[in-house]
């Protein structure tokens, strides 16, 4: 059978594909796009995770255990004790700090203070003189203040040489570092963020104002030492707000933190592939219908059902494989473009990160290939099966080609309703402690439900309309005649529209919610913080004299302070926000009134937790939160839960009074300034700038400019989402074109008959354009309906399950109103070429068989 199969395959499939080049290429393109998007998102996600892991490896080195102080308060006097602990073979201290680089806006350096003597067994990079890979001037390293080793990549990218000065901003001051050495990395570590520099730990402590404290101590254990037991012993000598764990835990923690965000991207990228499946189905189905006679002949000549099935699956597979192949290549390149956007978003939402090179694991290639191939075969299976089981006698009978599909089974409608019910059920599950990924099931069943309802809708539309002109009436009837295939076309487009609408509504609602929230909470007139914080997060501190200046300024009514702080909590690290507030700071609470809760918050030992924190850690108002402080672990009552949209990881709010009492740390990251009535924002800003920020050492925002900045970050966050949704819509419009082209091809005979009984070429064209328009209309109506349901799932279920915040549903009515218009326009546009072709039909040829 095999050689014969290939011959038939060549004649019947390859030749056919070659004849329908446009169709074939469309199919290939949609599969390619779907696969490319999936692959690109996977690569971008994977690269981000790998870059972070490599950076952890670079910093922690070959450590087996790590004593880590998230707040950077580990006393360095503990080092000899840690080193002398039984089971510890080597220990090396690390102090780190982030600085921003005014000459390179948006860039930063992660400064590592290392001890060259104890660090050697841990080092994963080569430390050498800048110009010579073989030498290292130890005396210069130890003696020269502010002399750093720069990562090779960073130096190369910025054309920096030995002896060059690099201006940095730190704690509201500009300082100069000298480049004296270079850090060379190899292998896996080369994936690490190149924004890294090392210097002697002593000078790093001086520079960062961190004398006496460390961020971490890396440990290597003696042979045969039990890591858990060593950790338990060390636990007894390190302060409660320090942790001890293998360094890999930090990458795991970040992987976990990013998992929700990344899964959402993956899910969105799969929508294109889903739409692509509709198209493959459509094409295969069309070619089955078109070649019923061929199938009949083949079958009567002795071809088996399996061979027929294989023939059509082979056809889909041929297109699919080319598509998958192109998609994999395209995805790889798309990833290069996408990885920057994805990491920018990760940096602004979660953790400072920069990806130097994209990383692709074998499983990414394999999964992209597998998903692409599986979706193609799955989509082609039904039509291929239909071809295989068709009766050769009936197939060879020329009449009644399309009639069979007119009958509408009740099953579609019931199936659709069931799917929607399943969606509701899954939503409830996801909101009640089931794994969050179930919420994607809810979204999927919304799309599936509306897809299954499509045939019923078309059929009602077709029967329900009584048009006066022949073209329109025929067009409406035709929709119902090729019901299944039209349903698929419409469902595909509707799914894309639904996704577009759903995402648009979700983002709009989110934006609206954030706007409301900002209006309540962002009430100060001026916001001032060290410029480095804008790049590196809250790592720099306000000089006390700058705060004093503001407090004593006659135009200033009050100064609110903010301090960011991290402490270990359960098996992870959580963020504390320490505030000294005026009464004007408004929080919106889930339960309780601000004027009762806030005075208690400032007066008593208690904390407030954000809604996301409450969900993530399953803690409620009235529960106790055990926080490790330098004075031991303290149980803080949770006074209330407040709405917050700053971090999906959640925040704990602590008053400055409490913080000072337990932590003895009065450093402040930024301030909010309230001005007296009638005072000029501009005057205070200028005075401050003149005194403290003449070289841009501070970022100063007015209320309005801070809002603008917040929305800038917000929009950047959803940039990738917009890209994905746009591509899905493009794929769907391609689908309309495909659907109509096949429709025209298979209705050649029927159109010929219409022409021969007197229809003009213009009428035929109008007929087809009306059909396209109706497809567009139905798809946009279904898409809108399904999109609104999807929006509910996205905002109320997926966002809540993954990120834990409450988003008030809001609708961008105007842009929603536009949706059907441009979808119908796109549909008519897509129908143009097939319609024009149909008008030029050769009547004699078309009706030859009559």
């Amino acid at each position, binding site marked *: 059978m095999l050689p014969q199969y290939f011959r038939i395959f060549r004649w019947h499939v390859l030749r056919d594909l070659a004849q329908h080049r446009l169709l074939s290429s469309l199919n290939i393109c949609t599969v390619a796009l779907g696969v490319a998007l999936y692959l690109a998102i996977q690569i971008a996600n994977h690269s981000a995770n790998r870059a972070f892991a490599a950076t952890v490896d670079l910093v922690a080195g070959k450590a087996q255990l790590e004593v880590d102080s998230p707040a950077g308060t580990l006393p360095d006097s503990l080092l000899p004790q840690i080193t002398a602990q039984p089971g510890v073979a080597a220990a090396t201290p690390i102090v780190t700090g982030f600085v921003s680089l005014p000459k390179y806006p948006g860039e930063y350096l992660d400064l590592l203070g290392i001890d060259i003597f104890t660090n050697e067994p841990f080092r994963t990079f080569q430390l050498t003189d800048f110009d010579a890979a073989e030498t290292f001037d130890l005396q210069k390293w130890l003696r020269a203040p502010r002399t750093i080793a720069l990562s090779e990549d960073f130096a190369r990218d910025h054309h920096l040489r030995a002896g060059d000065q690099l201006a940095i901003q730190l704690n509201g001051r500009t300082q100069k570092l000298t480049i004296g050495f270079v850090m060379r990395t190899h292998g896996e570590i080369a994936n690490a963020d190149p924004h890294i520099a090392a210097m002697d730990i002593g000078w790093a*402590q001086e520079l960062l104002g961190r004398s006496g404290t460390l961020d971490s101590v890396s440990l290597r254990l003696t042979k045969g030492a039990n890591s858990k037991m060593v950790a338990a012993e060390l636990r007894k000598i390190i302060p409660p707000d320090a942790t001890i764990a293998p360094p890999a835990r930090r990458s795991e923690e970040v992987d976990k933190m990013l998992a929700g965000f990344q899964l959402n991207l993956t899910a969105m990228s799969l929508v294109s592939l889903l739409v692509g499946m509709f198209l493959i189905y459509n094409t295969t189905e069309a070619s089955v219908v078109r070649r019923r006679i061929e199938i009949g002949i083949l079958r009567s000549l002795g071809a088996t059902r399996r061979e027929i099935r294989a023939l059509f699956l082979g056809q889909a597979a041929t297109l699919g494989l080319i598509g998958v192949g192109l998609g994999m290549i395209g995805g790889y390149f798309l990833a290069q473009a996408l990885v920057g956007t994805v990491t920018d978003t990760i940096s602004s939402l979660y953790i400072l990160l920069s990806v130097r090179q994209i990383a692709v694991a074998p499983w990414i290639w394999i999964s992209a290939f597998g998903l692409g191939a599986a979706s193609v075969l799955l989509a082609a299976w039904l039509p291929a099966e239909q071809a295989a089981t068709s009766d050769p006698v009936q197939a060879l009978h020329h009449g009644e080609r399309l009639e069979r599909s007119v009958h509408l089974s009740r099953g579609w409608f019931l199936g659709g309703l069931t799917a929607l019910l399943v969606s509701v059920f899954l939503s409830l599950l996801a909101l009640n402690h089931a794994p969050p990924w179930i919420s994607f099931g809810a979204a999927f069943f919304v799309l599936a439900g509306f897809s299954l309802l499509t045939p019923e809708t078309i059929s009602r539309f077709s029967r329900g309309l009584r048009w006066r002109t022949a073209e329109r009436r025929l067009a409406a009837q035709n929709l119902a005649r090729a019901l299944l295939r039209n349903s698929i076309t419409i469902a595909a487009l509707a799914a894309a529209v639904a996704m577009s609408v759903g995402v648009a509504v979700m983002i709009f609602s989110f934006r609206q919610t954030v706007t409301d929230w900002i209006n309540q909470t962002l009430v100060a007139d001026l916001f001032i913080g060290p410029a480095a914080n804008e790049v590196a997060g809250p790592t720099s501190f306000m000089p006390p004299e700058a705060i004093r200046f503001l407090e004593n300024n006659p135009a200033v009514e009050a100064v609110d302070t903010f301090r960011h702080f991290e402490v270990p909590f359960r098996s992870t690290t959580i963020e504390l926000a320490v505030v000294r507030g005026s009464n004007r700071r408004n929080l919106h609470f889930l339960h309780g009134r601000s004027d009762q809760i806030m005075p208690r918050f400032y007066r008593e030992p208690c904390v407030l937790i954000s809604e996301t924190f409450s969900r993530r850690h399953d803690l409620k108002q009235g529960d106790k939160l055990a926080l490790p402080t330098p004075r031991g672990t303290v149980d803080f009552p949770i006074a209330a839960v407040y709405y917050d949209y700053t971090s999906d990881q959640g925040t704990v709010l602590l008053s400055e009074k409490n913080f000072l009492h337990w932590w003895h740390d009065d450093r402040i990251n930024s301030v909010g300034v309230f001005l007296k009535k009638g005072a000029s924002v501009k005057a205070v800003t200028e005075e401050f700038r003149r005194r403290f920020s003449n070289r841009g050492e501070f970022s100063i925002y007015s209320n309005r400019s801070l809002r603008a900045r917040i929305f800038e970050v917000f929009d950047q966050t959803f940039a990738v989402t917009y890209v994905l949704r746009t591509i899905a819509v493009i794929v769907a419009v391609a689908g309309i074109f495909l659907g109509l082209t096949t429709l025209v091809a298979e209705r050649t005979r029927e159109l010929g008959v219409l022409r021969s009984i007197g229809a003009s070429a213009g009428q035929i064209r109008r007929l087809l354009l009306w059909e396209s328009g109706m497809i567009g209309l139905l798809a946009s109506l279904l898409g809108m309906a399904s999109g609104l349901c999807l929006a509910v799932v996205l905002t109320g279920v997926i966002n809540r399950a993954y990120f834990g915040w409450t988003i008030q549903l809001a609708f961008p009515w105007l842009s929603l109103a536009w949706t059907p218009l441009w979808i119908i326009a796109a549909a008519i546009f897509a129908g143009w070429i097939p319609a024009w072709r149909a008008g030029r039909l050769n009547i004699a040829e078309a009706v030859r068989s009559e």
Partner: protein
Amino acid sequence: MKILAAALAMLCIAATWQTAEPGWKYDFPRDHHGHENFKTEWWYFTGNLTNAAGHRFGYELTFFRQGIRPPNERGSTRSRFIVDDLKFAHFTISDAHRRKFLFFQKVSRGSFGEAGFDRGDEIAWIDSWNLRMSGDGSFHLAADAEGAKLNLQLVPVKAPVIHGKNGVSQKAASAGHASHYYSISRLRTEGELVVSGGRFDVHGESWFDHEWATNQLAPGQAGWNWVSAQFDDGSELMLYEMRLTNGGIDPASSGTFIAADDRSVPLTSADFQMTPLEFWKSPATQANYPIGWRIEVPKVQLAFTIHPVLKNQELVFTPLIYWEGAFDLVGTRAGKAIGGRGYLELTGYAAPLVELNR
């Protein structure tokens, strides 16, 4: 004449470090302690020991002080990790009987007081390695490492002898390339050694060098050969040859002969002749060391031949590599047969001398 001198060869020296100038007035025991205004300083102990069974051992224990911040830059910083000087030490044991040579290094900032100089009777220490001096003028050495341990009591037999002229030992022709350098050329030594599991009560004789300087080597010097010999007639000899990169010997090379009655005879390069007799190629570094020598010092009617107790007495640290080992000697003094023991140091053979680096 020690390894650390190499470190200085290429340093750009701040004027704020004190240099070795003629006219230094030596004062003991004050000068046994540290001289922190000089950039480099070391306390160098080598010795030849035997146990009751007659097994032959050699040891080296040296403490180095390498200045990082000159006096005018000190203070004004708060971090404990910023240090004024770097502490490091080398420790070796040569076990001639079992043909074993063990060598160890410790380097430390001394941020936590785990290393330093001049604390009570401790002259220098790093972790458990230390050099102590008692009120009676005797020294105590202790060091331990994996498979090796040393615990020795040293009592000077001779008074300190000052090398060079007018209190400075010149290392090159130009001014400033010099050190302050004295030796106690014979110390009666007793104590215990642990080598590869074996513990030995030992006795014998040691040699103590103490040298401090700033910028003592000149460019173009490739390394040196240094010899300390203790003869069984109660006399000693110290010689060094500065080897130049062009293959020649620097005329500034010199030495000192110390007679049994403590009278010392300064020697210039014209007064002695060193001829290599035996070479050993290190399998680890491929360096070819001249480990056996014929030495003639006509000025004091001395001629003898050096035979190392082990061929492999090479210290391989990164990137400092040198050969420092115990030897036996036979020869003649004024026509009479003479025996003795000593230590030989050979530097600059494995690689061009580089600054003190890691």
